């Protein structure tokens, strides 16, 4: 099963158009906490209780996992569930708050006085460029805004903002590719240096373990000093199995061993960490191809999902990275990391728009829980509201 489906299968949406308040995301949160609960109490009984109960959400209480576990246990016993985690949506909003402040605030500021003229358009253009969405999308948007405003369809800042929201959502909504379910499900995590591949794998493993899956990590980064140790610490933290060779070993051979071991140990998920590589290094890119080939060689039936990690602070080079990686190893999805800074992550717009590869996860903080499924509407809402 696709990795991201695993994350979303329990958070079906009922009301698609509702993206104003925290309701939906809280639902995700509730579901996740349900899983927590099930795991913690290990009682079917509790499960029934949870499912038959109304859920109240309390946003204010901190994010300490232990406290959460304690609390949920106690509360579950009293048949009245209150969720104590700061909601995911709130955290996404907090993470994007710098973006939000500047983006919406600025659109309003620019459009506050009078109609849309050449100066306003230029200011808007600068605003878009600043958010790293690239010149192509910027000019396209400006042209559309200009046209619409001449036709009288865009008259004030609210109209422009809702127009922009629609355009952005349209760009980001890409169907995820159907992949056949295989066991184990193999995920190859790739990207340039320093985007957060190893950390992301740690966070992914944490989630999967929470769902009760058997997770294996393969230490494919045999190049960077202490990369293996870093992954090992994550394996320990998440209680995952790890397959590793020594530093300097052939990455493909570690992966080959790992896949075989994962199959024989009946793993549900195998997460492969790879060395950071700049996309213009031909030999290193070939190595990725080789890694993909050895997985096939270990077991031809295994469906590999390749996820590209993109740093949200990256500029237009992010698009070139994505292009190159897609060309060499094909990309099934993008993980956008470090959204908790002031960077806007705008680079995903040209990437998704050109390559038609969906963003599947986003990272909004350093905590293990700060990696979640990507939802374009939530993302845009958090950006604007």
């Amino acid at each position, binding site marked *: 099963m696709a990795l991201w489906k695993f994350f979303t299968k329990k958070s079906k949406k009922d009301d698609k158009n509702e993206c104003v308040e925290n309701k939906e995301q809280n639902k995700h949160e509730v579901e996740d906490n349900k899983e927590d609960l099930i795991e913690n109490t290990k009682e079917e009984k509790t499960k029934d209780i949870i499912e038959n109960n109304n859920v109240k959400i309390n946003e204010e209480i901190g994010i300490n996992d232990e406290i959460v576990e304690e609390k949920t246990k106690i509360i579950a016993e009293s048949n009245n569930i209150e969720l104590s985690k700061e909601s995911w949506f709130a955290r996404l909003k907090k993470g994007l708050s710098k973006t939000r402040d500047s983006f919406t605030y600025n659109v309003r500021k620019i459009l506050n006085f009078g109609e849309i003229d050449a100066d306003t358009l230029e200011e808007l253009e600068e605003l878009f460029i600043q958010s790293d969405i690239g*010149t192509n999308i910027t000019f396209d948007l400006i042209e559309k805004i200009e046209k619409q405003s001449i036709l009288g369809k865009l008259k004030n800042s609210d109209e422009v903002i809702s127009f922009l929201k629609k355009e952005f959502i349209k760009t980001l909504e890409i169907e995820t590719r159907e992949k056949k379910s295989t066991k184990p499900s193999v995920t190859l995590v790739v990207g340039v240096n*320093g*985007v*957060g591949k190893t950390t992301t794998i740690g966070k992914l493993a944490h989630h999967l373990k929470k769902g009760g899956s058997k997770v294996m990590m393969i230490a494919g980064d045999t190049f960077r*000093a202490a990369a293996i140790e870093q992954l090992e610490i994550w394996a320990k933290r998440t209680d995952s199995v790890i397959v590793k060779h020594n530093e300097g070993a052939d990455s493909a051979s570690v992966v080959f061993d790992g896949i075989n071991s994962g199959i024989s140990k009946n793993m549900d998920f195998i997460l492969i960490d790879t060395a950071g590589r700049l996309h*213009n290094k031909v030999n290193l890119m070939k190595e990725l191809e080789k890694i993909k080939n050895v997985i096939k060689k270990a077991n031809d039936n295994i469906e590999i999902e390749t996820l590209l990690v993109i740093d949200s602070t990256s*500029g237009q*080079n992010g698009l070139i990275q994505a292009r190159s990686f897609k060309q060499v190893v094909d990309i099934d999805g993008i993980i956008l990391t*470090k959204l908790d800074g002031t960077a806007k992550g705008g680079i995903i717009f040209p990437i998704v728009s050109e390559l038609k590869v969906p963003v599947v996860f986003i990272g909004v903080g350093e905590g293990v829980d700060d990696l979640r499924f990507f939802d374009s509407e939530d993302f845009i809402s958090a950006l604007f509201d």
Partner: protein
Amino acid sequence: MFENLTEKLGDIFDKLKGKGKLTEKDLDITLREVKLVLLGADVNFKVVKDFIKNVKEKSLGSEILKSLSPGHQVIKIVNEELVDILGGENEKIIFNSNRVTKIMLVGLQGSGKTTTCAKIAYNYKAQNKKILLVAADIYRPAAIKQLKVLGDSIGVEVFSMGDKEEPWKILKAAEEYAVPKGIDLIILDTAGRLHIDENLMEELSLIKQNNIVDETLLVVDAMTGQDAVNVADKFNEKIGLSGLILTKLDGDARGGAALSIKKVTGKPIKYIGVGEKINQLESFYPDRMASRILGMGDVLTLIEKAQSAFNEEEAKELEKKFRKAEFTFEDFYKQLQQIKKMGSISDIMNMIPGMGKLKKMQDVQVDEKELVYVEAIINSMTKEERIRPNVIDGSRKKRIASGAGRNVQEVNRLLKQFEDMKKMMKNMGKMQKMMGKMPGFPF
């Protein structure tokens, strides 16, 4: 490096060069294109705006548009403005002569601080400085181990107090440890952090409040987008920076950050990271970088690299051998090693003026492996074979080929090329004798 930017600006300027007359409208069109190229390369939009404004004013203000070669004049102005943005002179780390010099590297997560610490250590170790690396990244799993592994690999001691002690205390203790040992330079590796993370920024302030830090260098990933300027600004405001280090410049299509940060913060770029290997850290020369961006090559860096890689005595010895055509595989092998010291062939090519464009035109993929194969073949030869290649017969060829893991054809090709080279040298030697002594570089 900067290939994309260079190439695109080159195209724009080519159009300009052909024009005998330049109207203001032509200029506007050109500058609009320049603007797009710069924005596409992630140059901060404010910097771009000023840049375009300045170039336009200077171009219109003088008699340039009416001059004989207005295109060239405009290019000259663009070059001057670029140098202005990048900063004037190269600035080095300033050593304190009375006590141990302390530098601290800070930056966002994943910008390359730990690797850069080791690169700086390697750089100064080669200049006979005694160095202590200090591990103060107490958060990222295995960060301390990473620094230790790197320190070991270059023979530089790493000071660590585990991940429980506060960084400012670690630096204090490190200095106490370093002084009796006669250490010249302490390099402090700190944890990656967001510029808006108040607690972690406070941690850095504490380091500086409790220690005298000679240099606070911000490590910036060259692939960063428009946000680079915000990040640099915030770090500067909160803890005060003395300079910048740009990393990952060995990728493609960027340099925008390089152009912007210096301009906005006023802090000089001191080093640039140009590869994953420990020796791939270069001093930053703004004027050279500007020429490189404009596709004018960087001959100065090339010469410096050659000077550091080649020993003058050896070079003279070789030159003699050259002229007498006594050059052997043994010598050739030595040469290969020296060239390798200068960096990869494509790096070297990029520094040669005009090469950037040429390379693109012919779509030549320089295969670094070729050299490795040649090296392997020479490695499989006996000493006698290296000095007297004509003893290499069929069975020896077979042995050499299997030893090197190549095929006999490749061995043949190398032998043939070597013979050709020797013939050429013989002729050159004769020519040189006729023309008088020319200052010589073996190749």
